[in-house]
């Protein structure tokens, strides 16, 4: 009697397993075909570091206070300030470099930035692989250009 019970139980479990797998066969695949399709990135996701531009004047919002340079834990940011002598004596960055290879995406620079709506910030662009380390050092023009293009 026992062997019949074991056999029946085994057959039931085999059928149960097959029913489970066949349900998955006819369900839709969850794979994302990466280069063709992409996940929508969240608003506050930290991709590449950029400099933002004031849309009214077309100039960088950065006031060259060097707060981000001081706070950066990996010293990824290099900045040289210059003072605009005409008018209100506004400081602006002459050189601004971010080494994206050194950046750890901690977000401290964005946090300490005193400018309204942040002069330095992270955008949700995450595809910036290059072939050499040198290409990862972004200069001011490149930072500003990516900052204009993405959110």
């Amino acid at each position, binding site marked *: 009697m026992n062997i019949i019970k074991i056999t029946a139980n085994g057959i039931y479990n*085999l059928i149960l397993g*097959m029913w489970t*797998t066949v349900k998955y066969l006819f*369900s839709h*695949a*969850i*794979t994302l*075909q990466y280069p063709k399709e992409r996940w929508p990135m969240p608003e506050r996701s930290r991709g590449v570091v950029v400099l933002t531009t004031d849309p009214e004047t077309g100039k960088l919002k950065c006031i060259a206070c060097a707060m981000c340079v001081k706070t950066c834990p990996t010293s990824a940011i290099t900045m040289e300030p210059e003072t605009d002598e005409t008018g209100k004596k506004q400081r602006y960055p002459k050189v601004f470099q971010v080494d994206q290879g050194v950046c750890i995406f901690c977000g401290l620079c964005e946090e300490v930035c005193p400018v309204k709506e942040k002069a330095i910030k992270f955008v949700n662009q995450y595809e910036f692989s290059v072939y050499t380390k040198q290409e990862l050092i972004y200069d001011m023009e490149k930072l500003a250009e990516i900052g204009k293009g993405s959110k």
Partner: protein
Amino acid sequence: MLELERLFKAVYLWLERISGSLGIPHFWFDLFTMILVAGIILAVMSIAAMFLVWWERKIGAHFQVRFGPMRTGWHGSLQLPADGIKLLLKEDTTPAAADKPVFLIAPVIIFVASFLAFVCLPFGKGLIVRDLNIGILYILAITTFTVVSILMAGWGSNNKYSLLGGFRSAAQIISYEVPLTLSVLGVVLLTQSLSMVKIVSAQEQVWNWNIWKQPLGFLIYLTAAVAEVNRTPFDIPEAEQELVAGYNIEYSGMKWAMFFFAEYTNLVLVCGVATTLFLGGWNGPILPSWIWFLAKTLFLIWVVMWFRWTFPRVRVDQLMAFGWKFLLPLAFLNLILTGLLA
């Protein structure tokens, strides 16, 4: 329109007329048609094997909620030609300490054995190479050469994993050959013939199919057939986690491709034989006979793939215990019941 047997008959008669008018001796004409038919079967088998590899990858992927190959061609349909070209161009290595003649002949034997068995598989009404009066016996006998080849590959490679794989395969195929043959005997008892064409002709209507008269026999055949072709859950001869790849570990390039090819042609063969014996072969309404045969065979192959992506592999001792202590008595019971009731 799609009646292939009429087309073949017309081509045959046309060739016969031409050879008659040219005065070619009948022997040469016969040889030529034989080579032609062999070529057609080889081509069909190659396409089937290529299609099945692709299909298995796709089905396996979808069982795991993935896509599988997607880049080469429509849904990865050109993946297999690409892989085939790669295999042809690959370096064909032979281990230094291998038993060279044995090592070289093994893939040829498995290939020839799986190819020869197609001689008496009825692909459709009138689409059979030779309707031998001992058809099913011939198929069972010729497929046994597979185990010789696997043993040769395992021994000739001079590798512990391939040797273990070969031994396991020999033990498995010999154990499961017995219930397989006994389950086939039930059908033979009912039909009172070993000829494949007669077996198919005996099950013309759906309610005449042998699966209704032999449900137990069908299940035993399917289980033993899965073990015969070394597929999961009985794939211990090539269990990746234990034996790396089993008997074909030292093979590369075209020789490995021959093993791979034979594996899938054997799958087509056992499913084709199951269709012929239990599912009414080519019989079916409206559509041409070969389409029915193809559809039933593909359905069975799909079921075997379904097994593969559902069941975990059994242990060696479990496999032997299941084969000898459970499947064999059940097969005898089936045979006795058939003998009493038929």
